[in-house]
């Protein structure tokens, strides 16, 4: 699975220094010192959003890449996590928000959203392949319409505003620099978790279920149980992404879980590449940059700034046509073209 040149490792080893390619260290360093290089807008709006969307897309990538299940419910799970923070914590809608402390509502939101994801998984795993897309899309739509109509819990069309992170250690976590590090930290943790789990017994079994469910059943695995458990794991990651999202926007409304948002996550995951966990983050960066700066580009061409959706849609189509494995796929094809070293045999 790893393409870089490193010594073959047992399923167990986790030897940091030897294993990690130098490129990662460079990237890590740049990310750490970014606040010195970039302004507040870039830190909060571009990178913050990239990490958040990347996490939600990572959750989709885990299910699709390792589990072979393309699920469109991840954005909904994230939104539910965000909604729970607003409902259980503080917001501008005093009649509904419970005002619980953060160390109650954050875990509660993650649990509730993960439970929802597990439930959807239980419904979706009884069918295969494209049916999963249909069913998860239908459930995601149902959630959107329900949240929009329900005023008792979700506050309907308006949703919740003034949802901000708690003031911890005297830091305003919604400030540009703290928020950058918060989202960076969560993104790194979820990325590391996915990479680690992918070679754990659970992760290996999930890939086995992806490649050959019949064989896995004949090896003693309950295929459905594994798939559902995968939904739980992925939903936990999406839920964290959703909490960060509601804090970033300081508000949440049904549109956060609307079909366009759901499809955007799919676009991000596919464009980045669903075979490896870095793909979703690449896709998220491309999406966020396009989304933020294309209106200006479009205006320069005399088109309305609103046509960015058209750009993204066409970009997505081009990627699916020519490189179904996304940007990662292009990278791997380019790598494969490099001439082999006649002495070493490898690249």
């Amino acid at each position, binding site marked *: 699975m790893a393409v870089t040149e490193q010594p073959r490792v047992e399923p167990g080893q986790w030897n940091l220094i030897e294993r990690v390619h130098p490129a990662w260290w460079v990237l890590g360093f740049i990310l750490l010192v970014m606040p010195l290089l970039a302004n507040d807008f870039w830190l909060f709006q571009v990178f913050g959003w990239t990490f958040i969307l990347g996490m939600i897309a990572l959750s989709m990538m885990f299910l699709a890449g390792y589990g072979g299940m393309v699920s469109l419910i991840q954005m909904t799970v994230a939104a539910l996590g965000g909604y729970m923070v607003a409902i259980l914590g503080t917001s501008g809608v005093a009649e509904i928000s419970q005002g619980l402390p953060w160390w109650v509502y954050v875990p509660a939101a993650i649990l509730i959203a993960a439970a929802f994801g597990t439930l959807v998984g239980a419904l979706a795993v009884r069918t295969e392949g494209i049916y999963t897309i249909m069913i998860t899309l239908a459930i995601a739509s149902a959630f959107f319409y*329900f949240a929009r109509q329900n005023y008792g819990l979700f506050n309907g069309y308006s949703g919740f505003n003034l949802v901000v992170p708690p003031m911890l250690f005297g830091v305003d976590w919604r400030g540009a620099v703290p928020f950058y590090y918060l989202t960076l930290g969560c993104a790194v943790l979820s990325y590391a978790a996915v990479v680690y789990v992918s070679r754990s017994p659970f992760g290996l079994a999930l890939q086995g279920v992806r490649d050959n469910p019949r064989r896995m059943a004949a090896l003693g695995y309950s295929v459905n149980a594994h798939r559902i458990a995968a939904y739980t794991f992925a939903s936990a990651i999406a839920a964290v992404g959703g909490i960060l999202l509601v804090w970033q926007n300081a508000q949440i409304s049904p549109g956060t879980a609307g079909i366009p948002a759901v*499809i955007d996550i799919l*676009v991000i995951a596919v464009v980045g590449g669903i075979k490896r966990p870095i793909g979703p983050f690449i896709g998220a960066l491309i999406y966020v940059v396009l989304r933020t700066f294309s209106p200006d580009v479009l205006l320069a061409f005399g088109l309305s700034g609103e046509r960015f959706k058209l750009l993204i*849609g066409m970009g997505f189509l081009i990627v699916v046509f020519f490189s*179904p494995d996304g940007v990662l796929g292009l990278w791997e094809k380019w790598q494969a073209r490099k001439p082999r070293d006649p002495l070493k045999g490898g690249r």
Partner: protein
Amino acid sequence: MGREPLLQRFASRHPIWTLLVAIVAAGLLWLIFAPWSDGLEDAIGKKKVFLNAVFGGVTLGALYFLVAAGFTLIFGLMRNVNLAHGSLYLLGGYLGFEVSEATGSWLLAFPVVFVVVAILGLLLQHVVFRRMEGQELRQTMVTIGLSVVLADIMLWIWGGQSYTILTPDLLSGPVELPVISSIRADTGDVIWFKFPAVRIAILIAAIVIGVAMWLVLNRSRLGMLIRAGVDDREMLAASGVRIQYVFLAVFAFGAGLAGIGGIVGGTFQSLTPGEDTRFLLASLVVVIVGGMGSIPGAALGAVIIGLAEQLGLVYAPTYSVVFTFLIMAVVLAFRPQGLLGAGR
């Protein structure tokens, strides 16, 4: 798609369910045709409201059937989950609006829109999907990309406001149906139920189209090829049939149906951005409930979902969406292939 007598088979295997369904159906028929007592009306509201909801639900189901039938055919035969189906619906609606505005004829919009959207479907199948034979996931992604692009183009051309297609004079106004609405207490005169004529016309048209589709599928050579292809695509291709022509025909037809569904929807309701998503979702739910690749399934699912939506809207407005979702979840939990879907 219709082998042994389905009803007999179902009745013999599941006697309790059959009894329950028969009771519910009988109850519904009684509620519709028998005059209501005052006590009943005090309890659940006027009969006219109920009748409006029921007929509204059935005619909405007719609209859903038109759109979902094409969707289920395309999936059943070509295993292509066409998530751009809703966009075809909306495009058909907008085009229908333009045609009826330009020519002043509502009826003329139908053949024109059918042909135009069918040609678009033909192009899509021939240029795009044919190259992705067997890569179901990739095809689905392409349809998603297409839906995004089409939605934005339509937004560009027609903007965000809502359009309604005017009902032709011939069909505007109510028609009287042989269903008792109420009985005047003083004179004992029967007041018959009145319902918009255009909706009844669409219901009849949908039934005719549905029956015609069923006949073609079950009695014609083309239909036999399609059914064989749904059962086993490789066999059909191996038997020398020019399977690509069958695919083209089915995709074009399905797309055309979605297009004229747009005209109907534009007349019943309105056309706005977002309706494409709504009708895609409705098609998905109808087909999940009714069964993939099954025309009778699409009809059954459409009627159930249409009724659930309308009855829910009238009697429990906040939760009508939940009803639809609950029905879908229950079907998924107990019969994942859909009510009339082929068992897997």
